[in-house]
């Protein structure tokens, strides 16, 4: 596979992105290596072809944001909103991720080997997220669809105002958010977990996870729900 290198110490992020939007889509699947990212923001946003982008080092905000069919691997940590609003493809953070990882992702798979910060998977809309470590508070806030696998612990208010997304947690949950509840694992859940863990390269026992889903009690206005709204 062809491998092209962009050195962000020499080249602007805009030139990298422009290559990925204009040139990469004309070529068959190939690999682009990004050297010296030095925490630059908006690396490889808006991919629209099956190109593989490997970032050697730390990325700033929104790395791999709005990805469609691309694969972004960050061999370092990622800033806020990594893989935000992804539609398909894969974003893989080998290190840690900051706040809002995978926010409003409609599809695709976000893998974070380390921990993720606050609001991981907020407004999730169909994407899958696998976190090797723990997630911060308000993760999966208002998550509508998709699946989230947390191999470590979850912070406060996990799954607050959850819609139809399903969360799996292996460690401790500090607290559940409004309308989120623990439910028994079904066969479908075991299959989902096995598949997601395998794709992400973790070999935990699927049965060691707890499932969190919506109570669906806030789906309609209810005078007795008070501040829950």
């Amino acid at each position, binding site marked *: 596979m062809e491998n092209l290198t962009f050195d962000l110490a020499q080249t602007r992020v805009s030139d990298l992105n422009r290559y990925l939007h204009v040139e990469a889509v004309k070529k068959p699947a190939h690999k682009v290596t990004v050297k010296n990212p030095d925490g630059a*923001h*908006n690396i490889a946003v808006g991919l629209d072809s099956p190109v593989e982008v490997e970032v050697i080092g730390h990325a700033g905000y*929104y790395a791999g*944001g709005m990805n469609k069919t691309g694969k972004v691997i960050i061999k370092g940590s990622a800033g*806020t909103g990594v893989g935000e609003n992804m539609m398909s493809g894969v974003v893989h953070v080998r290190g840690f991720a900051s*706040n*809002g990882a995978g926010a409003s992702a409609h599809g695709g798979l976000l893998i974070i080997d380390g921990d993720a910060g606050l609001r991981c998977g907020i407004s999730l809309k169909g994407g899958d997220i696998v976190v090797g470590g723990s997630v911060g508070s308000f993760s999966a806030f*208002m998550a509508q669809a998709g699946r989230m696998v947390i191999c470590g612990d979850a912070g406060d208010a996990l799954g607050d105002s959850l819609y139809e997304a399903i969360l799996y947690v292996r460690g401790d949950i500090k607290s559940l958010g409004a309308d989120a509840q623990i439910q028994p694992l079904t066969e479908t859940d075991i299959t989902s977990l096995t598949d997601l863990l395998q794709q992400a390269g973790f070999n935990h026992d699927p049965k060691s996870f707890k499932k969190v889903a919506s109570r669906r009690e806030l789906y309609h206005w209810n005078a007795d729900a008070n501040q829950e709204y």
Partner: protein
Amino acid sequence: MDAKTTQQARHLTLEESYGYDRKTLDYIRKAAAHGLYEIRGMGAKRKLPNFDDLVFLGASMSRYALEGYREKCATKTVLGTRFAKKPIELDIPITIAGMSFGALSANVKEALGRAASEVGTSTTTGDGGMTPEERQSSKTLVYQCLPSRYGFNPDDVRRADAIEVVIGQGAKPGGGGMLLGQKVSQRVAGMRTLPAGVDQRSACRHPDWTGPDDLAIKIQELREMTDWEKPIYVKVGATRTFNDVKLAVHSGADVIVVDGMQGGTAATQTCFIEHIGIPTLAALRQAVDALEDLDMKGKVQLIISGGVRSGPDVAKALAMGADAVAIGQGVMIALGCNGDTYGQKGKHLSALDDYAALGTAPGFCHHCHTGQCPVGITTQDEILEQRLEPAVGAKHLKNYLKTLNMELTTIARACGKQNVHHLEKEDLVALTLESAAMAGVPLAGTSWIPGSR
């Protein structure tokens, strides 16, 4: 007089409480009955200082007027000249405000697109994403990026002509969108990834950024995403407008949209609509002050919305320093909102019974939230939505926009301007103390601007 009439007449001599008037009694009784705040559509109903409180000083001895028929008055409007490679070029400075598919039917979205394209202006999507109907029918389409990110799709970002990052809305600064279950049809639910029929409450904050420094990076992401081609608008509800506009400029916006408290909504808590935010007149002046303070006037364009209804309103907004206006409620009324009848194959049919069924009447209706719009505009009901025929709606809307533009150019010529963008604050005076203070123009017949140093 019969007994009943006598009894009614006697009420007229009784003293009504100012603090506990009938409106307040009704509010307390409703609260006691339901235990939930009232949700409704449209904008603030209370009496507020507005553009009607300003008048133009037409040309006379000291200024030279232009001939109405012969001398041209330019209306071309360019938005997004700061950073975007492809700024938006409009034939008129009157745009269609963001309104969602979900709040409005697909027919209405199509009518808006058709009319806007014919008069050479832009339409805007809303919470819930872009429909193929509106993209197809709109020559220039502004794509909103909202806190909820419902249906937000990179393909639509690429298909859009400009992107509008919505921080807030004049009807509900600080509040998120709302769409009650009866409007969350299968199609709407599908676009928003929600179960059909749920009462949808959208987020009030964006999921992936928290302050103006973050927003600067978010805007850069949208620019990188579109290779710096498309203008990025930032829309704020009018509150601390002077600071908000400065921060929006700092964040890198090409265009700033300020929506005053008269701005409409399809569904919001009444306490929001009437009690949060400042009038459009005050917000517009603060926004212009902020741009002038930063020496960004003319570099970052300003769109004002919230109760812009007529040609004179547009002219006054431009004179105060706006580059364009956005209209929502006026557009709906042009389509037939709050009308007695709806058109069906060339005939006018009465909608009175349907208003009555909602407990309202034409002229008073704010029941957009129910999804049972008697004239088929704010509905997802398959039968009701047929009441708005896109071709007829588009024709009415085109007429409305053309009228506004004619009034605008007539006023501009009377003030001696060859270009509507040459209208200036110096052309305006105020009729009330409040409007003089808010708009920062002198009280008519004086040189006094209350509050000025």
